[in-house]
């Protein structure tokens, strides 16, 4: 067999507080679709950023056609034919399609951009990705799926031989995703290799010639085309059988503690949300990205006050206009974006853990330093936060420990209802399981838990009951007995044709 088109040998990379890659190797053949999968925090994104020249590895080698190369910058990567298509697209909304494709490489004519020529050439690349739009259209006016195709056209225009796609379908509709798959097939036929990163195992099964699984920054295993199966992939990703991974035991729900009746969020004012939540039960909220799940939690927690409807907490009607008011009635929210909304990165573990309790523990406006120390010691102990001492700056903790700090902040207030938004995003497998165990423990103690997750396994593994949302509506509710991949997907897409 000839040398692979692109090979990575023993690549390592560390960041403050995390060892993202610990000697990862992959190989990519010409005209191959290689899926790289793994849980959040497994190191996929770091690996791809290194290949695309965004970051540089600490050690290890990158080879192209058998010869070692060094990729120092994005420019370097492009020159070697490697293009990364980011999860968040990198297009200038205010420029037209053709200008975006040739951004930074505009052909000139008499010192000015040769607009005619770039539009003509752009047409060629747009045809290659099957996108039928006028090159003079402003990118910002195109739907997200088309914008993605523009990105691919841009990559083709620099003669990319390796196309890295990071979660390309995460914000696409089912139809747009189908179109993308067809483009990927065509690209492969024309000799382009694709590294495809996705959480959606259905897509992977459909597209990939081969799968490389990463776990905690290491190679967990490879699957050839004929070996690719859902269970096989999950097993490699989590490192054990999924059935043992979720410590879930059914709970007997107690009294209703949260009753939501006809709440309207500012994000989706056209739909009224209603459901109940009982003490001691864990309810999952499933749905695709953009289904309005985060917006629902933020409204219930008073971040973006409701436009209408009523909300009862333990039988008392409230309409929180701010998180402060929500906290007052025993609600707590572990937000989606840990680094922006959850922790204050530059402050210490102690200061973060005590932040929400300062008001409660104050003595005539003065902080109670002793109580703060006790509290942080208690949370470090009971949540097993791995930190040398409680004066450690939170920034230097791993994602999982940061998340525990956020949890500790709320548990210090002994909430009745705990909202968790993507509680295990970006944290390693071990910490994940600890979070699950904590959820279990809290539910047993009678806390009502409502958690949003985009990971199907997590919804299936941890929910006593699941709500499914689609475009701002709750499209259904599934009891644990009726919980299945298919049932959730059907409700999440509300009858739309499912791509995966």
């Amino acid at each position, binding site marked *: 067999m000839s040398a692979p088109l692109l090979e990575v040998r023993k690549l390592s990379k560390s960041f403050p507080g995390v060892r993202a890659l610990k000697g990862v190797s992959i190989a990519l053949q010409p005209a191959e679709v290689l899926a790289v999968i793994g849980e959040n925090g497994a190191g996929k994104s770091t690996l791809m950023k290194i290949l695309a020249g965004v970051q540089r590895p600490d050690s290890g080698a990158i080879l192209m056609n058998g010869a070692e190369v060094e990729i120092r910058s994005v420019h370097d990567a492009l020159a070697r034919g490697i293009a990364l298509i980011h999860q968040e697209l990198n297009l200038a909304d205010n420029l037209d399609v053709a200008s975006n494709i040739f951004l930074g490489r505009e052909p000139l004519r008499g010192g000015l951009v040769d607009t005619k020529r770039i539009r003509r050439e752009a047409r060629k690349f747009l045809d290659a990705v099957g996108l039928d739009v006028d090159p003079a259209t402003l990118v910002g006016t195109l739907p997200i799926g088309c914008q993605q195709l523009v990105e691919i056209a841009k990559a083709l225009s620099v003669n990319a031989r390796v196309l890295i796609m990071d979660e390309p379908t995460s914000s696409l509709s089912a139809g747009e995703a189908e179109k993308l798959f067809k483009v990927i097939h065509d690209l492969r036929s024309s000799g382009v290799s694709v590294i495809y990163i996705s959480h959606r195992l259905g897509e992977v099964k459909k597209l990939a010639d081969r799968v490389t699984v990463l776990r905690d920054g290491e190679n967990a295993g490879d699957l050839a085309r004929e070996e690719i199966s859902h269970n096989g992939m999950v097993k490699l990703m989590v490192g054990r059988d999924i059935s043992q991974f979720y410590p879930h035991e059914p709970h007997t729900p107690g009294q209703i503690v949260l009753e939501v009746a006809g709440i309207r969020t500012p994000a989706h004012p056209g739909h009224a949300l209603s459901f109940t939540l009982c003490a001691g039960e864990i309810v999952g909220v499933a749905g695709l990205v953009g289904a309005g799940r985060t917006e629902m939690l933020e409204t219930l927690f008073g971040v973006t006050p409701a436009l209408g409807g009523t909300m009862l907490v333990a039988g008392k009607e409230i309409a929180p206009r701010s998180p*402060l008011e929500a906290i007052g009635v025993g609600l707590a*929210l572990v937000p989606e974006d840990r680094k*922006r909304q959850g922790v204050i990165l530059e402050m210490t573990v102690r200061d973060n853990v005590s932040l929400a309790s300062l008001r409660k523990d104050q003595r005539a406006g003065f*902080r109670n330093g002793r109580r703060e120390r006790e509290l942080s010691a208690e949370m470090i102990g009971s949540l097993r936060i791995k930190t040398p001492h409680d004066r450690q700056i939170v920034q*230097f903790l791993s994602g999982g420990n940061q998340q525990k700090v956020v949890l500790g902040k709320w548990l210090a207030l002994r909430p009745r209802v705990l909202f968790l938004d993507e509680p295990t995003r970006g944290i390693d497998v071990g910490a994940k399981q600890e979070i699950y165990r904590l959820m279990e423990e809290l539910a047993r103690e009678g806390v009502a838990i409502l958690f949003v997750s985009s990971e199907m396994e997590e919804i299936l593994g941890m929910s006593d009951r699941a709500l499914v949302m689609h475009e701002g509506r709750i499209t259904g509710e599934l009891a644990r007995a009726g919980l299945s991949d298919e049932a959730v997907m059907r409700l999440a897409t509300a009858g739309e044709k499912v791509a995966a």
Partner: protein
Amino acid sequence: MKKILGITALLALVCIITAILSEGFLSGYNIENLARRTALLGIISIGVAFVIITGGIDLSVGSVVCLVGCGLPWLLTKQNWSMPAALAAVALVSVGIGIFHGVIITKLRIAPFVVTLCGLMMYRGIARGFTQDQTVGFGGEFTGLRTLATGQISIPFVDGFTLPAPCVFLLVAALLAAIFLNRTIWGRYMLALGRNEEAARYSGINTDRMVIVAYVICSALSGLGGMLYVLDSNTAQPVDFGNFYELYAIAAAVLGGCSLRGGEGTIVGILVGAALIMVLRNMIMLTTNYTNIEFAIIGAVLLIGVIADELVKRYAMRRRAARALLAETKPS
């Protein structure tokens, strides 16, 4: 405390150099003067530091100093207001300006830079308007009131030096500010929201209110400073009274360890920063004939100081990160 070590050492160094170059530096008269000027700058610097700690900026400090500095003698001598009424009026105006800034910044979400830049222009303009650009002053009157700024407090067992009265104001303000910042929940809220306003809000902190409080503290201390400045100098020219004081105050805060990104700063550091600026000015005045290069020197020192601070901080961060990584990979 480690953070202000560098700047304190720099202050000591500048003092020693100046003392060597100029005999006059250590004279009781010069030190008294220096202490008074430092106290006045220190008061307004503490105010602006609160705003900087919450991640904002206040460019209107100098104009509030002007408004109050011109307004007080104008009310007393031209409008013949009683002393309590005039004092109450300037206090109300100062606090009102703070509320005005804070509300516009938090409720209308307009950048602090813009809001206070407009304030900078408006308040001086107003002062120039009601005084009709005429110098205002106390003449020979109000000596009792003026003692607040010009008074001297003799220190037991010390000869040849008496403590200028503004130093007492500074010490009280600094003490209260330090207690507020370090011991109360509001102080902690300000530090937290300066670092990450969103996370602070999600943690149940009324961030808008805290930001408004910070601007009120700033304008109130600017007003206090303006009053003491004019009581000290006896007269005020609306055209340039308090000119550039906001920049001196911001420089003192930044030299003293406040980051313009917010969330950082100590009261002691700010005092050292204010002292450093005043000593530098004093040095230029005593040892050279070029007082007009003052800004160049202070600018250069500030720049070098901030660069050094940033480099030290980066180095410390890297070491800390390396240690944290080690601690985490070690099985516990």
